């Protein structure tokens, strides 16, 4: 693994930065903060259109699917630069669901959706979790029943983020009641406007809205089933390996926080001296910078593994745990170092770091239990990574 970016990668980074200089106006940034997961405002949509015009929605896809055939490191650079700059996020539909369609989908699946994903016209909401199927995802109960040329869907999903503004549901459903747990699950795509889909808001601490979505006798064409029937579990876990890598991979926002804290410490005084002259502030910030460096290196390692054709289960899992827990630490240490002013809400114009610090404190918990909880991630590291035996107690997994 190389620690320095190649000439080509540096050029790519410069190109992304140049793009952001032109398209990421303060107005777009402000909209990203104001909308926080409540959907995409008009400026964000324009921004995404500019991304799609450059075909960066299909950065790593094969040319045969209209993609740019770039590597995972280039994708990592793109995501990092976007995050560092406070741009609208790089959508998981482009980076983890479309690649899954390309790899496992049917020709009909690809013909139906890929082009519209590339252009930004299709956005999926991830419908895996149910109220009784969180970590134990394989116990999910939403069903799809075949009826002639259609699938009929009934059930209820929860924590279905983006359901109120995405165009389609990317649903995990049970297609085979006889088969054991994992074996009877499929993925199916449902237009959100389809009759029988009802969305109810769930509000969260971060201000991000997510949803409970009820499916009653919802009919979709047979071709909406992704890949082969009853093979969904393999697709889900495959995508989760990559999603985990991207959840962990949000190092750009951590770098932004640390740089913001360093700048603030050079300007703000407390109890008679600049914050940066306080030894506790110095060592606190230095430790955050050190950890963010480690997280960045882990992210690069994961991308490098993908470029070598490996499935990054272990480094991706290591990085997921480390980086998500680091997010809590950066927000916690950062707020404490700033003192009282750190308490100003992001709603206040003079909140330090534009309020991003206090918001990060509220957002950090989700990253630790979402996309596979860190408890389960540690089991995976110990058991699959280190070869330790499973717990003796029957844990059913």
């Amino acid at each position, binding site marked *: 693994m190389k620690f320095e970016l190649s000439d080509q990668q540096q050029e790519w980074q410069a190109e992304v930065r140049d793009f952001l200089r032109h398209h990421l106006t303060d107005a777009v940034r402000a909209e990203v903060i104001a909308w926080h997961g409540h959907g995409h405002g008009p400026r964000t949509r324009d921004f995404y259109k500019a991304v799609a015009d450059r075909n960066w929605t299909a950065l790593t896809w094969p040319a045969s699917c209209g993609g740019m055939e770039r590597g995972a490191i280039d994708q990592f650079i793109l995501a990092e630069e976007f995050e560092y700059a406070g741009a609208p996020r790089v959508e998981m539909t482009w980076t983890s669901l479309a690649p899954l369609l390309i790899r496992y989908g049917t020709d009909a699946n690809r013909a139906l959706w890929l082009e519209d994903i590339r252009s930004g016209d299709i956005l999926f909401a991830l419908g895996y979790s149910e109220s009784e199927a969180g*970590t134990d995802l394989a116990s999910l109960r939403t069903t799809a029943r075949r009826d002639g040329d259609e699938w009929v869907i009934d059930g209820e999903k929860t924590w279905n983020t983006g359901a109120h503004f995405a165009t389609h549901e990317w649903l995990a459903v049970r297609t085979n009641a006889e088969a054991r747990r994992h074996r009877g699950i499929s993925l199916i795509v449902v237009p959100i406007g389809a009759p029988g889909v009802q969305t109810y808001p769930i509000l969260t601490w971060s201000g991000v809205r997510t949803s409970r979505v009820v499916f009653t006798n919802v009919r979709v064409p047979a071709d909406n089933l992704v890949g082969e029937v009853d093979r969904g579990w393999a697709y889900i876990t495959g995508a989760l390996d990559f999603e985990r890598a991207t959840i962990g991979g949000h190092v750009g926002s951590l770098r932004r926080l640390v740089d913001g804290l360093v700048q603030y410490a050079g300007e703000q005084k407390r*109890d008679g001296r600049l914050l940066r002259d306080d030894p506790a502030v110095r060592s606190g910030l230095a430790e955050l910078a050190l950890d963010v460096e480690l997280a960045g290196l882990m992210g690069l390692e994961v991308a490098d593994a993908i470029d070598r054709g490996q499935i990054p289960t272990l480094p991706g899992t290591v990085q997921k745990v480390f980086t998500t827990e680091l997010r809590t630490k950066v927000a916690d240490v950062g707020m404490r170092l700033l003192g009282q002013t750190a308490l100003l809400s992001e709603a*206040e114009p003079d909140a330090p770091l534009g309020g991003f610090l206090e918001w990060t404190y509220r957002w950090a918990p989700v990253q630790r239990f979402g996309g596979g909880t860190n408890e389960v991630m540690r089991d995976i590291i110990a058991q699959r990574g280190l070869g330790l035996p499973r717990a003796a*107690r029957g*844990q059913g997994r």
Partner: protein
Amino acid sequence: MDLSLTPEQVGLSETLQRLLADLYPAAVLSTDEEPRAADRLWAELTGSGWLGVGVPEELGGSGGGAIELAIIFRHLGRAVAPSRYRSAVLARLLVRALARDDQLSEILPVLSAGQQTATVAYAEDGAENDPDHMATVAKHDGAGWRLSGAKALVPDASSADFLIVAARAQYDGALAFFRVNRAAPGLSITDRQIFSRDPYSDVVLSDVPADSAARLGSGDSTATYLRYRDSATALTAMEMVGSLERVHEIMIGHVTSRTQFGVPVGSFQAVQHHAADVAIALAGARLAAWKAVVSHDQGRPSAIAKAAAGRALRNATVLAHQVCGGMGYTTESPLHRYSERAMTYEILLGGWDYQLERVAVSLGL
């Protein structure tokens, strides 16, 4: 070590716990009902002598002392009750510590009966903890004082009848405290939205007049203020311990009832270790908070109590979110209110690093 409470103290604790469960139950948190519940609670606390706890009866109070106040703060912490009572009691403690006898007999009965409330306006942007860097000044103009400066994030300033404003007296540089009416000319209050729901305001003073009787006490009040601050810090630690106890209960309750893989998630070792870690931190924080409440030593006990409670509570809320998963993250769950309080109270009255420095000083370093 004897922490056993008298039957009267146990009675006080049970009464307040019932009262909070009735008037300010967890179910109202973050709902439209919350402001009304807060008002009902406040009416009860002011109407039934709760504001007088810790003040002798001859001064218009209801008697009791540090232990009774600690019991109350602990319950307020458990319920994440509004900060109004806390602000009023802390202001009253400061008045009691500073005021001359004639001022005491005038002000304390009014505060104890809840006829008026006060709040302490001390911290400034750039001078949060250390009185040496206070920039608000009090000029003497012959007839009385004029105060100018800016106070940052004063708790409950909008609802208090008067503020206890800390300032440097011109000429001798003494740290002085003034009683300033909320409606005084030259005083402006701007409400700020902060990390927790509690009402905090920035206060700007431009030549605010204060007559000689408005100055609480005389001479340099630094030592008195620091003694008051020890008590305020110990009570805050106790309030955090109350929150910590409740967070631990929420955690245990959830992992006992939530099942995945056909078993309670609390049967997984990783989850059990989180619950045990919180129990361990709670054990230490609770002892340290009680010790600080009953101790007559300055500095060290309250520093240890606040640092331990802050660390334990922040970590507990993070772990509680972790084991409660999605359900603990919605605004319907009370958990986020504890998480907000955890960071807010960590920072107010000095955070971890500040308290460690006080411990270092106690070591002779």
